């Protein structure tokens, strides 16, 4: 090492001290520093770039029928975006189905804008030919319009209540080569995988903290990821087959987790590692 560098490093190296600390103190200082890292990221969230793109898409005429999302009812009336995400999933009589935001957006594309079903979900999660799809931008915009709104999924509605109970069963369903269930990693307090804190989703506080910060800009991927993506990628790591986008099971699990988060202020899209 050239002398100048050695001098600088010796004179001012601070992080090096971390190496010397053992056991609990080390884990604590690591956790504190990771917390500082997360705080530093809050200063600017690239999710805003998606929100801006999504807002334009929401307002523009789209699809073969040249219809904008002004006709799309997210549960609070056609085109109403403010606060809509905090009340999803919900039962939509026109579709005869409980829907989350993403399945509802796809329904509007197909049924109002005339988009072919295959096209509406072609590149979800950035699969296929594109790195990203319009859906992430639309999701970023719609969710941003519930920022500060209290989560209130209509669990009293019988269809929603049934999906909640099915989602709960799914959460505890162990299977695959590794015996994993959602609960394996998200069923206890204060646990981590590597250095990532795992929210205990069986408790209201844990579910609230987790659900209200999705979708999120993932710095590890440089992309905005939706809640459907979150579930899909959890099951991949659970060694399960692929969870189909907007499938009943994906909506049931979303209903369970969103319902657990009821009462908490929605605070997405967030920025995460």
């Amino acid at each position, binding site marked *: 090492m050239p002398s100048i560098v050695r001098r600088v490093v010796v004179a001012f190296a601070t992080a090096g001290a971390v190496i010397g600390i053992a056991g609990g103190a080390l884990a604590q200082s690591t956790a504190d520093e990771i917390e500082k890292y997360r705080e530093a990221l809050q200063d600017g969230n*690239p999710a805003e770039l998606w929100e*801006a793109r999504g807002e334009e898409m929401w307002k523009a005429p789209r699809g073969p029928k040249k219809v904008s999302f002004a006709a799309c009812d997210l549960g609070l009336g056609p085109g109403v975006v403010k606060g809509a995400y905090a009340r999803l999933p919900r039962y939509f009589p026109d579709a005869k189905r409980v829907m989350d935001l993403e399945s509802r957006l796809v329904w509007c594309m197909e049924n109002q804008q005339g988009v072919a079903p295959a096209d509406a979900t072609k590149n979800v999660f950035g699969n296929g030919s594109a790195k990203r799809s319009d859906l992430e931008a639309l999701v970023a915009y719609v969710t941003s319009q519930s920022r500060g709104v209290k989560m209130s999924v209509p669990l009293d509605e019988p269809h929603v209540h049934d999906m909640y109970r099915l989602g709960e069963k799914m959460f505890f369903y162990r299977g695959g080569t590794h015996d994993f269930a959602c609960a394996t990693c998200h069923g206890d307090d204060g646990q981590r995988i590597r250095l990532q804190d795992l929210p205990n989703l069986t408790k209201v506080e844990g579910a609230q903290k987790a659900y209200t910060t999705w979708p999120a800009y993932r710095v590890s991927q440089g992309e905005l990821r939706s809640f459907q993506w979150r579930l899909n990628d959890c099951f991949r790591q659970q060694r399960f087959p692929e969870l189909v986008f907007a499938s009943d099971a994906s909506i049931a699990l979303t209903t369970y987790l969103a319902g657990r988060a009821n009462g908490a202020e929605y605070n997405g899209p967030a920025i995460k590692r």
Partner: protein
Amino acid sequence: MADPMKIRAHVVGDATEVKVLMSHEMETGQRKDAQGNTIPAWFIQNVKVMHDDKVVLAAQWGPAVAKNPFLSFKFKGGAKGDKVKITWVDNHDETRTDEATIA
């Protein structure tokens, strides 16, 4: 055509605080795609921030600046209603200029 920047400019005391997010891949040229082919470098090389006709910050970036770059700094002066104009140029000679009003 690149997506617009997200620029925030606020008066803080006697200075103006500028925060900007840019939409850019900032591809390093060192990564490989699924087929094993190198993904060519594609990154912003120059950034210039103007207040009126004055350059208040100029930067040269390499590909080690993070994807969807973020930059925050302060300059003296600037009044509510003034414009802050930011331009970037990347190594493909693509460029984008956006403007924000100081709040």
